[in-house]
């Protein structure tokens, strides 16, 4: 500015007097800090302000509803109900265990609580095993195990989608594709198992079956 160099002379004079060198400034700071004993004293109590949002939590700024995606949860609960139905034919203990499992999977489907999902899935699985020990037919066991793993798979997928994308985003296509893939694997495996169960109904020893399955595993790992 061309005219800013013309302040009233009086101003200029006082300013020159007042100008200490910068080295003197820190000195005055420390005394000022020392005199503010109140501030020091209250520090542990914590004078708190409400911080406004920062760059770092920009992800949380877009508030997402972190509950699991709806479709996946519905699939999981439906599959859990299938397990309960299967377990109910196997007696009282399996049904009680399965119903508890269903409850936990349902809880996970609403709250994204992963531990509940794991525990629920394990209970569903145990219910089928108990039923199997109690004498469920091979088909019932295959359906029960298949439905259990399917339920866990879709529910976990739903929880993951909820965490990453949120419930209020469009996720349906994704969920259907994942559930479809999972169902295909369960269906194929159950079909294969059922075929084998018909073939071996002659009463071969169980160890022979284990060897058969080991063979399948080796074949599968050789192929992939």
């Amino acid at each position, binding site marked *: *500015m061309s*005219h*800013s*160099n*013309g*302040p*009233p002379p009086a101003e*200029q004079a*006082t*300013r020159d007097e*007042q100008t200490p060198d910068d080295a003197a400034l820190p000195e005055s700071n420390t005394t000022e*800090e020392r005199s503010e004993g*109140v501030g020091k004293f*209250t520090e542990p*109590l914590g004078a708190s*302000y*409400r*911080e*406004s*949002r*920062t*760059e770092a939590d*920009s992800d949380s*700024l*877009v508030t*997402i509803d972190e509950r699991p995606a709806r479709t996946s949860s519905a699939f999981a609960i439906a599959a859990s109900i299938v397990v309960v139905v299967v377990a109910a034919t196997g007696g009282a203990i399996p049904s009680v265990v399965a119903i508890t499992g269903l409850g936990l999977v349902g809880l996970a489907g609403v709250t994204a609580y992963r531990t509940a999902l794991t525990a629920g899935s394990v209970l569903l699985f145990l219910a089928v095993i108990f039923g*199997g*020990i109690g004498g*469920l*037919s*091979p088909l019932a*066991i*295959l359906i029960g*195990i298949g439905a259990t*793993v399917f339920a866990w*798979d879709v529910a*976990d997928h739903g929880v993951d989608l909820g965490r*990453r994308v949120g419930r209020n*985003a*469009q*996720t349906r*296509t*994704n*969920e259907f*594709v*994942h559930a479809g*893939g*999972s169902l295909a*694997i*369960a269906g194929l*495996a*159950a079909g*294969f*198992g059922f075929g084998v169960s018909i073939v*071996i109904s002659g009463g071969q020893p*169980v160890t022979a*079956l*284990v060897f058969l*399955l080991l063979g399948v595993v080796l074949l599968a790992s050789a192929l*992939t």
Partner: protein
Amino acid sequence: MKPFDTRRWTGIVAITLLLLGTGVIVERPGLVLGGVIGIAYAAGSRVGEAPAPDLRIERKLSNATPEPESTVEVTLEIENTGQTLSDIRIVDGVPPGLEVTEGSPRHASALTAGASTTVSYSVRSIRGTHEWSPIRIITRNLSGSRERESRHETETTLICIPELTTGAALPLRGLTTQYTGRIGTDLGGTGVEFHSERQYRSGDPARRIDWNRLARTGQLATKEFRQERAATVVLLVDARKEAYRAADEGGENAVERSVDAAGHAATALLESGDQVGLAALSPTDCWLPPGAGRDHRQRIRNLLAENPAFGSTPPDETLYPRSAFRVLRRRLPADAQVLLFSPACDDTITRLARRFDAYGHLVTLVSPDPTTDETAGMVLAAIERQNRLSQLRRSGIRVVDWGEDSLASAVADARQGWLR
């Protein structure tokens, strides 16, 4: 990015072995056969790699230069130009300052080759330049055992520049330039308001001779009027990390309010013929030397709206007040007053204000109040702030404590306590 294992299916082998073992022990072929399911899922989890997405993404804004507080619709058009993606999640990089009001900037889908999908959501515009950060894309294989995260750059900018409106005229202090303006000084001369009388000196204009006095006493005297002068004002906005504080969640933070007030002040001051400069107390440098005129007003408007120093989110770096002070001191014209806008949430600002004042740049502090009384800590913060303000008042600095009401009424309240 490289694909990695999600470890989703680690438990499946244990399940299978448990089934096989139990089946053998209790001699139930059905249980052993149940192991087939486990084997199938384990095999399924080995199939396929998380695909590297090859997408064409276009982002469209319904209005790239909206008014503040208006709703802008954002549409992402995503086309899969590569292989089939059975599991893809898209997280749009919404600028941190913008709030999503409707819809979700996230999306999960499955796209076959050539398929496309759209994501749309609305944001509320606020002052500033907002740039979208890269889109995060997460892909998985069908079983979800492998995952890959990648980023897709789609540059979009939303610029929102509010109009500068005239609001409360902030009263200035007595440090002026030699140019005529609106600030009354204690000097006699030409002006409007009566100041004093002095002895006639030859050459004084006849209009200013006190003819009544001449008639009464026979002596010639010259009337003096209070000189009115213009000032050079530098608006200094505290935009440090510490100033980004708001009284309520999601409310305007102190920096937003300061910038708003600075805009009002700039218009009012420029209209009354003062020279106005602008500076930010921020790690990001922002300095506009004092000036006047319509172009200058536009420059201030753009700076306040767009300069990253006044961004809607706090800066990452900290400001070193001593060096900032030194830089500002060098830049300030000698006769410049400082209008400081700060919530006064820490002692640094009181120290700075007093130092500017001591160096002759008369300081007026306009302090938007970010404190509340919800918790004991917040009450304490409010008290500490009040102490700071009264400390400043004691050292002769004018303080406008700006609470929830309008700036004009805060100024009117504060004025009552000021000496001329």
